[in-house]
């Protein structure tokens, strides 16, 4: 699974992206966030407020119950501020 981080999630985690193989209990966006929070202080800080984290699976917006699987591109980012 390819993970991508943008804006302050990228700077807090300290990575723009990474390849991961989450454990089997990671089935959807919500459980992916729970697993990531346990991976270190940077992750915990970046993902502390789920209300400020948006997710996209394979480049489409995804809600917390959206499934994730091996081979997916999952992006995590704050609310967008373009325009």
């Amino acid at each position, binding site marked *: 699974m390819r993970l991508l981080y943008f804006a302050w999630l990228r700077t807090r985690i300290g990575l723009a992206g990474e390849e991961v193989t989450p454990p089997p209990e990671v089935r959807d966006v919500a459980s992916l966030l729970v697993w990531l929070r346990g991976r270190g202080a940077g992750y915990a800080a970046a993902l502390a407020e789920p209300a400020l984290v948006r997710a996209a699976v394979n*480049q489409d917006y995804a809600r917390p119950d959206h499934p994730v699987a091996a081979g997916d591109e999952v992006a995590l980012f*704050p609310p967008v501020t*373009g*325009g």
Partner: protein
Amino acid sequence: MSVRVQTEDFDLGAELERLGGADPGIGAVVSFVGLVRHLVGETPLRALELEHYPGMTERRLEALEAEAGRRWALSGCLVVHRVGRLGPGDRIVLVATASPHRADAFAACQFLIDALKTSAPFWKREETAAGARWVEARAEDEAAAAAWTAR
């Protein structure tokens, strides 16, 4: 219908001329240009850094253009959004719509910029003498975009 994400500036006159000349039935071209403000509150801005999600950005903007094309009689539309480092007064974004008559061009242009602001994956970081900070999303922008789904 076209979408461009680029670091370089755009030529507003040339873009509007091209859009308006694309179809002999066009009677109206409406454009919105977003500019980098000189002040953050009362503090002078030094620079604005724009980050985006390559791939998803284009996909979202194309989906918004397609939705605009379903809702209004458009002969063409164009979204150009800049990324990278911009300075005070620089152009950030151009949204332009062309239609046989003005009402559809106005409505589609406003829809596109309102929807872009809350759904296209761009993020702004402002730099002032006090340091740099990521811009926070505004509730007013959410409300403006939500109003279009209610119509």
